């Protein structure tokens, strides 16, 4: 399971764009039938630099990984929206959730890495989660 979410630099990201790479990422996980991934992109990501695309790819990979490891979810939904002020990324699962006002163990490297990557892109993020009502993570990246 870890293997699926942890694959190396995807070729699609080097050759094409973030949307194609995320679609491949989702297709790959769907083939394992562990969980159902869905991906929607709104707007064009052509203007995104390759290095920023890689950072965003890693962020999405990390969030998906978290959901696979902890959420006991059946579905994960990823959405990337390009709008005038930037890019919004949403990663949602329908798993067990947690109390987002008192987040669980944040000592792991996962969330720290996530924070570092989002800081690098001068972005902001928020987590919304409720016990037994899934988790929704929103990331705003300015352009």
């Amino acid at each position: 399971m870890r293997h699926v979410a942890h694959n190396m630099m995807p070729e699609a990201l080097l050759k094409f764009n973030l949307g194609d790479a995320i679609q491949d990422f989702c297709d790959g996980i769907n083939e394992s039938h562990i969980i159902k991934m869905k991906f929607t992109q709104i707007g064009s990501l052509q203007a995104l630099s390759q290095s920023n695309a890689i950072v965003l790819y890693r962020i999405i990979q990390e969030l998906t990984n978290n959901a696979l490891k902890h959420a006991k979810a059946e579905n994960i939904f990823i959405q990337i929206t390009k709008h005038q002020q930037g890019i919004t990324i949403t990663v949602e699962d329908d798993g067990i959730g947690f109390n987002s006002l008192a987040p669980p163990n944040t000592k792991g490297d996962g969330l720290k890495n996530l924070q570092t990557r989002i800081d690098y892109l001068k972005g902001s993020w928020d987590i919304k989660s409720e016990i037994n009502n899934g988790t929704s993570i929103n990331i705003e990246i300015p352009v």
Partner: protein
Amino acid sequence: MKGKTIEILLVDDHALVIEGMKALLEKMPLINVAGTAGNAFEAIALLKKMKVDIAFIDVNLPDISGIELCAKITKEFPGVQVIALSTFQQSSYVNQMIGNGAVGYLVKSAGKQEIEESIQSVWAGKMYFSSGINNRQDPAKDNEPPTLTKREKEVMKLIAEGKTSHEIASKLFLSIYTVDTHRKNLLTKFEVNNTALLITIAAKFGML
């Protein structure tokens, strides 16, 4: 056109693939391997010289990729049908090749029968995809509602209640700009151009 020999061009940088394909194709009736090339330059040179009906093109060629070569061939040699040849079955590769004019996509794990099928379908004017490739259609299907994020669902419910963007913004602690973006995205996802239609369709799907 039927009953006539189909002229094939093979483009791949691996000699083994070329030789293997050639050996298989030469056993098939009414199929002739007109030429083989190891890269895009050789392929273009051959196309200028000889008549080719179907070109099998490796997606991963050195220097000029099969994806670029495919675009060039479709533009400059419109009589040539391109079938992509690849070890990858990720949709990004398939989409790029199809987007550049390929009419078929064959994975290298294909056997003799699949290769023959690909030629026959393309020759008959149909598209061909190896089994195992999910020939993805556009996500907007009439009978399936788009997937919405929790935030979009909240915004949509408030729109349905007749709230203005200002009211929605203050209720959800969002900027008015963000609410408008959600509104636009909802219209895009439901493929409608006004909120009234959005609400009607969402209600039909039982999403409100």
